[in-house]
């Protein structure tokens, strides 16, 4: 029986993009369903009753939630192709530590930039700059965070590339200018077809956030 794989997502979501990359890396065919977060489908509410958030992966009718849990699940089920995590337990622990770091220090922190008044962004910007300094240090002379090949940490962080332009416009700092190694790494990842097709255009994302901010009365 063929696998039935469905992804409930919302196109600007950096979390959803991670899952799209993972599915593409594994060559998995799936049905993509775009959710309207202001009018959530019954399916979304049933499949993720706890958080009612996207992304949700539905595999043969069973839901998996939380983007990194989903990526590990995909890696374990479709284990014969393109491993996303290393095999060595210490390296796996390292990878998980850094993806957790990305979640807390990049994704959670940057949310403030899009959702608060521009004047209040100074301290958030400082935090993000510190974080990117640490990440650049971690990258050092390697092509990817995973070493020679694209891996779990690269996948977790690269989706933030979709927000580089927005960070520049709202946060008034340029990741490209201030972090040339991160910028080079991002461009390297974007050369992979699986990544490029999973990440929307930066300006399109910026326009979406501008709209959101108008609706929230921030600008």
């Amino acid at each position, binding site marked *: 029986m063929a696998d039935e794989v469905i992804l409930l997502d919302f196109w600007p979501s950096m979390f959803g993009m991670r899952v799209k990359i993972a599915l593409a890396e594994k060559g998995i065919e799936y049905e993509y369903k775009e959710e309207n977060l202001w009018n959530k489908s019954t399916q979304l509410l049933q499949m993720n009753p706890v958080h009612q958030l996207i992304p949700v992966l539905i595999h043969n009718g069973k839901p998996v939630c939380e983007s990194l849990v989903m990526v590990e699940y995909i890696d*374990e089920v479709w284990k014969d192709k393109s491993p996303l995590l290393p095999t060595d337990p*210490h390296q*796996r622990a390292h990878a*998980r530590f850094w993806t957790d770091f990305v979640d807390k220090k990049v994704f959670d922190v940057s949310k403030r930039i899009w959702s608060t008044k521009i004047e209040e962004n100074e301290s958030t910007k400082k935090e993000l700059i510190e974080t990117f300094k640490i990440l650049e240090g971690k990258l050092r002379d390697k092509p990817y965070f995973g070493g020679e090949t694209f891996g779990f940490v690269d996948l977790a962080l690269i989706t933030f590339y979709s927000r580089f332009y927005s960070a520049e416009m709202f946060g008034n700092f340029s990741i490209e200018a201030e972090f040339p190694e991160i910028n080079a790494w991002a461009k390297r990842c974007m050369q992979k077809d699986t990544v490029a097709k999973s990440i929307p255009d930066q300006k399109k994302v910026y326009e979406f956030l501008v709209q959101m901010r108008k609706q929230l009365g921030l600008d």
Partner: protein
Amino acid sequence: MAEENKVKLLGFWVSPYVRRVELALKLKGIPYEYVEEDLKNKSSLLLKYNPVSKKVPVLVHNGKPLTESLVILEYIDETWKNGPPLLPQDPYKRAQIRFWASFVHQQLFETWLSVLKSDGEVQEKALKEVLEKLSALEEGIKNIFPEGIQIIEHENVGLLDIVMISVFGPYKVHEEVLGLKLIDPEKTPLLFSWLTALLEIPVVKDSLPPHEKLVGVLKFIRHNALNPTSA
């Protein structure tokens, strides 16, 4: 103990994150050296092994440090395969365990801390959120324990049990400090019977900090949060 297999845990007795790593080591029967840190005067060892966040727990194995309790638990499970497994084999069940462990670790625990550190309306709102999240957990674990809670033994204590115990094992202490019911057998019968079953296991029960000592610390934390000293 051979140098290459040496395991050291840097911890602080109050921290539920540390307690869960200790419990995992004990369940797996892994010998380790425990180093109690004074968090107001962090040792050079801690600063060397965790320069990024300078926090405990830090597990040092073969001289290499690891941080973040959930990351450490999975590492323990993958490295010491001869003890009881902390995660099931099936990928879907593993995903469920990871989802709920993250929910208890982050969502529930953080909201719970807000209850401890606030009063009045703020506390009421936080408490309401905790009780809602406990209800969500009660519903969620019905899929993990489809036949309800049977007897749990040392061999079947897993990652989610460990995380649950580390946060809510001392629930009677929390209830005493705050004068309210947290794990109500009528509202969340599955959670209540789950915790009760886990606390029957000696190694789990022993992992709880001493009742009176914890009452003292939690009262102290609450007092400091409600009466911050001015700069």
